[in-house]
């Protein structure tokens, strides 16, 4: 796959705040890329720099092999879908969609019939048929989202930037739009760069997931790799499915606040500071007196509360150092266990399942 967008050492500071501190990345054409980052990690800034709404302090942006960091936004040919959709409230649905075609600087379409035909095609592609004449203030959030998308796609950009495009929708609609966004992108064959703060959304949508952490790309990989092998403790924390321990490596074991954990055979991942991560759903809860196998790690903790979510139940335990430890049990093959309030249990996991950073 050819590279469509390349960033080289992009930096951007606001006053004393470093929003982007040296971003390097190359995005392939015809792909769905999700950019995951906690709030304040610089993800919206990065998107606005690529679109040209903000100027980077340093570095180079190459789009289709040409440098564009000094090119005005309207000459970049990169589409942008805003979180608040930013539709033109004085225009109807069809007029909003036709706006770019009719008014763009390069190659505007003046033939009424061509405009109408292309607007009609894109309206049926995004599923807005019948709403052409509606005012954009008179349609629902999901429909507005589609207008925003159609308005951008009809101009046939090589790449579309989406800034938390599902953030303004309710949970049900968000799940439906995920699948639809992917389908629409595949039919159009453009590159989508989708910014989100939700790890579930990023993993579900992206062919490639980029994780942004304090103005840097912390990891760039497919969903499976990001989820199972986060590149750093920060990425693991942000995925919201790992129990993390701080500590040090000492004589073939990890020494943390609640004990020594024997290490598995895999070499530790390099990181800024040592850490130990075990996924919520790799841990089993057992009575204190139960025996453990040779390759298992065991700690004790007090049960605090649990949270039932249908397919799984998440139980929270208080460790002896006061920190909370979370265990996720899938219910597909088992009924939910009930644990005694403040009861003491053994939490057990396989040595090989843990991720160790050193």
């Amino acid at each position, binding site marked *: 796959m050819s590279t469509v967008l390349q960033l080289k050492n992009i930096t951007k500071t606001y006053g004393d705040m470093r929003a982007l501190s040296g971003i390097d990345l190359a995005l392939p054409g015809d792909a769905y890329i999700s950019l995951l980052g906690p709030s304040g990690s610089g993800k919206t800034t990065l998107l606005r720099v690529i679109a040209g709404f903000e100027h980077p302090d340093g570095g180079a942006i190459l789009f289709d092999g040409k440098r564009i960091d000094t090119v005005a*936004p309207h000459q970049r040919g*990169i589409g*942008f879908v*805003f979180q608040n959709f930013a*539709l033109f409230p004085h225009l109807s649905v069809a007029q909003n969609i036709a706006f*770019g075609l009719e*008014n763009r600087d390069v190659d505007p379409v003046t033939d009424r019939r061509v405009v109408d035909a292309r607007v009609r095609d894109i309206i049926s592609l995004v599923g807005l048929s019948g709403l052409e004449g509606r*005012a954009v*203030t008179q349609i629902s959030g999901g429909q507005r989202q589609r207008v925003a998308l159609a308005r*951008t796609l009809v101009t046939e950009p090589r790449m579309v930037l989406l800034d938390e495009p599902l953030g303004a929708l309710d949970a049900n609609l968000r799940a439906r739009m995920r699948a639809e966004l992917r389908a629409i992108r595949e039919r159009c064959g453009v590159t989508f760069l989708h910014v989100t703060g939700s790890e579930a959304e990023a993993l579900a949508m992206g062919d490639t997931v980029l994780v942004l952490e304090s103005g840097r790309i912390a990891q760039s990989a497919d969903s499976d790799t990001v989820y199972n092998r986060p590149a750093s403790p920060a990425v693991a924390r942000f995925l919201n499915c790992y129990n993390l321990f701080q500590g040090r490596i000492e004589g073939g074991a990890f020494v943390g606040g609640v004990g020594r954990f024997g290490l598995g055979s895999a070499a530790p991942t390099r990181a800024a500071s040592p850490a130990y991560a075990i996924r919520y759903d790799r841990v089993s809860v057992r009575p204190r007196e139960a025996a453990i196998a040779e390759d298992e790690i065991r700690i004790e903790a007090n049960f605090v509360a649990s949270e039932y979510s249908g397919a799984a139940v998440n139980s929270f335990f208080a460790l002896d150092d006061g920190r909370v430890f979370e265990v996720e049990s899938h219910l597909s093959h088992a009924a939910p266990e009930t644990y005694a309030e403040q009861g003491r249990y053994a939490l057990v996991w396989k040595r090989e399942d843990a991720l160790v950073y050193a």
Partner: protein
Amino acid sequence: MNASGIKTGLGAYTALFLVFLYGPLVVLAILSFQTGPEGGPQFPIIEWSTYWYKHLFGLTPPSRIAPLPIEQALVRSLGLAVMTMIVSTVLGVTAAQAFRRKFRGSGVVFYLIVLGMMVPGVLVGLGMALVANTLGIDRHWWSTAFVLHVVYTFPFAFLVMLAIFNRFDPSMEEASWSLGVTPARTFRKVTFPLIFPGVLSAMLFAFTLSYDEFSRTLFASGRDLTLPLAIYGTFSVEVHPNVFAFGVLTTLFSFALLGTYAALMMLSVRRAKRVAIQEEA
């Protein structure tokens, strides 16, 4: 005090407010129907008549009371108000657009602009007259007075537009740019239609402020008088009810102007809604 007491109090206050707002106007309107030419500008009404309205338009037989010398002045004042309205609104919109981004010295420039509506009018008028005399420039309503009218009304237009831009969502412009539309065309096709209600308000402000401006015009307009000056001039001789009749007519004109403004506003606000209603019908 209990809730109903507060209600009564506020009601009485509002009633008083309305009396003081419209009372003088009502008295004026009643006295304008005094009989003429012998009736004077005071109660009681000797006999109801429309004599003074006819007198205004020269439809009465000649009498010792000269017609109001306002025909020229009215044209001048309207011309001046229109000129001021156009220039101040254009300046106001462009200046407010510039203030959407912080620039070096923006604070100083802001206060310089707003100063135009703060400084006492008589002093500015006098100052302008002195400057014009020193430089040997003739004073006219369309030159020195016009400049002062713009200086005076521009801050109002500017502040109105500043408030409008404050609530304007810049991502709509960014969306337009990202569709390949130039900033200039974006302003014309997206920004301007959306700020248009604000532009109308700015125009209304500039027009009405200029139309009845007195103190600045007094010294700066030279020989040819504007309407407020001409009317004031007639007071120095003797007041007749024809001035009241004229007052009623200009008030009606102002209401017509406001009505037009309201209608234009409603049109621009309702446009989007109407589209939707047609769709559902």
